[in-house]
C-alpha cells in the first residue's frame, strides 16, 4: 500500500476528487496548506505599505491506495490538477505499512 500525497491548487479539488472517484478511489483526506515554491506570491497592502506574502494557499490531498493503483492515481491527479502554469503542485508517494478502519477494525487492503 502507498500513500499518495498531492499538493494542488485549491480550485482544482472537485476535479481531482471526480477523477479519483472515476478510477474507483472513494476515500481521501484534504488539508489546507500554504505552499512555497517557484510560483511567486502576492502582495498585501496596508496603508500604503506593501507586505510580500510568499506563501500561497494550496490543498494537500492524501490518498491511501493499494500499491498496484499508484500509477493510475498519479495519472488521474496529474491530469485533473494540471493547468500548465507554475504552481500546479507536486505528487509525493511513500510506503504505507498498514491501515486500519477504526469502525470495524478491518486491516490493510480491506480498510481502504
Amino acid at each position, binding site marked *: 500500500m502507498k500513500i499518495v500525497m498531492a499538493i494542488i491548487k485549491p480550485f482544482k479539488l472537485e476535479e481531482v476528487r471526480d477523477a479519483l472517484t472515476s478510477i474507483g478511489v472513494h476515500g481521501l483526506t484534504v488539508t489546507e496548506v500554504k505552499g512555497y515554491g517557484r510560483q511567486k506570491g502576492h502582495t498585501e497592502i*496596508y*496603508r*500604503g505599505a506593501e507586505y510580500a506574502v510568499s506563501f500561497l494557499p494550496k490543498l494537500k490531498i492524501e490518498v491511501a491506495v493499494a500499491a498496484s493503483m499508484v500509477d493510475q492515481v498519479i495519472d488521474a491527479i496529474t491530469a485533473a490538477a494540471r493547468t500548465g502554469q507554475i504552481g500546479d503542485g507536486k505528487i509525493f508517494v511513500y510506503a504505507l505499512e498498514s491501515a486500519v478502519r477504526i469502525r470495524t477494525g478491518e486491516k490493510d487492503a480491506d480498510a481502504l
Partner: protein
Amino acid sequence: MKLFRIFAGLAPALAIAAFIGFAAPTPVSAEDQPAAAAPAAAAPAAAPAATPAPAAAAPAAAASPPACSSTVLKECTPNSGDTAWMLTSMALVLMMTVPGLGLFYGGMVRKKNVGDTVMTSFAITCLVTVLFAVVTYSLAFTSGSSFIGGLSRVFLQGILSDISKGIGNPNSLAPTIPETVYMCFQMTFAIITPALIAGAFAERMKFSAMLWFIGLWAICVYAPVAHWVWGPDGIFSAANTDDKGNFVGWVKVLDFAGGTVVHINAGVAGLVSCLVLGARKDTGPAHNMVLTFIGASLLWVGWFGFNAGSAVSAGMQAGMAMTVTQIATAVAGLTWMFVEWAHRGKPTVIGIASGAVAGLVAITPASGFVGPIGSMVIGVACGVGCYLGATALKHALGYDDALDCFGVHAVGGMIGALLTGVFAINEYGGTPGLIEGNPGQFVNQVIGVVTVIVYDAIVSFVILKVIDVVVGLRVTEEVERDGLDLALHGEIVQ
C-alpha cells in the same frame, strides 16, 4: 533618543508657527470684526438659538415660558427638540467609541491582539465615564480660572437641583437643554479622545499601564485643554466674555467640535506614547478589514452626533454642520483611495476607510464655520495630508505609530484647525476667516494648535515616564510575540 530627534524635526515648523502667532500684531483681533454676532455664534459648540442672528432652535421653545437666551437664562426651560437631538447625539458619540473605534482599530491589528484592542476601547469608556462624573466635568466645564475650572460639580453635585429650583442649564453654551444632557454629551467626547490615543501604542502596552496612563491623561491633559477651549472662562473660549459680550480671554480659537481638544490632543499624546514605548517587534497587514469597515462606518454615522451635535441644538447650524461633515468625509475617502491607487496600484478598504476618518477629523473643528466648498477643500487637503502622515512621515521619522493615531488624528486635526481659520464664513458660523479677509483668525488658530501641542507633549511624556518606572509600560517580548489576547486576557478569537 528618538523622541528628541523627532521633536527636533518638528521644531522648526512649530517655531515658525509660534512665531506667526505671537508676532502677529493683534492676535486677538479676530473677534473685533463681527462684533454683534460673534460672541455667541462663534462659540465652539455654540448655541445659535441664543443670538438674534441665524436663529435656529428658538421658536420651538417660545410661547409662555420665556424663551431660552443667555440673558434670561434663569427663567429658561429645556427645549424638547434640542434635547431630543442632544440625547440622540450622546448615543451616537458613544457608539463611535464602542463599538466604532474598537472595531476600526481591532480590524487593523493582528488577530492575536484583537481582543486587547477592542477591550481597550471598552475599558477606557468605563474608566473615563467614572472620572468625568467624579471630577473632569467640573474641572473642564465650570467656571474657575482661565486655565482650569472649579470644583462645584465634583461628583455631579447640584447638577439637577439647580434646575428643579427653576433655573435652566447654567452652562451658557447650552442654554436650551438640561445640564445633565450637556454633561453626558461632553462625557462622550472625553471618552473618545483618550481612546484614540490607543491606536498609537497598540499591540505592545501592558493593559494595567494603559489604564494608569489614560486615567491620568484624562485628568491632567484633557480637562485643562477642554477648559481652555470650551470652558466658560477658558483662555481660548469664545464664551469667555464680559457682561457686554466682549471677549476677555487670550485669543479666541475656533474649534467647533474638537479638532484641537480631541484630535490634535489625542494625536500628539499618541506620538509621545509610541516614542516612549518603542516600536513593535513584528508587524503585518490588517487581519480583518471587515471589522475596520464596520468601525469606520459607525464612526461616520456617529460623527453626526459629534459635529452636528456640537451645535447643541437642532436647527440651522446643526444642519450645515451635518452637510459639511458628510461632504468632507466623502471627499477625503475618495482622495485617499485615489492617491493610494496611484501610488500602490490598488484601492484598499483600509485606505478608503482611513481617508473617510481623516475627513471626519479635519472637518471637526470647521464644521460649524465653513460651507460646502470649504469642506471640499478640507476633504482633499486631509485626504492627501493624512495619507502622507500615515506613510511618508511615519517612515521618514521612524516612529511606530501602530494604527496612525498621529498620522491621521494630529495631522488631520491640524489641517482642519488651520483651514478653519482660512475658510470660516461669517454668515455660517459668525466668524470670518482668511478668505473673507480676516487673517487674524488664522493666526489665532495657529496659537491654539501650538499651545496644545506643547502642553500635551510635555505632560504626556512625564506621565508615561512615571508609569514606566512604577509599573512598567511594555509587555515582555514573549507576550508580544504570542499575542496580548491570550497572555493578558486569557481569551482568543477562534
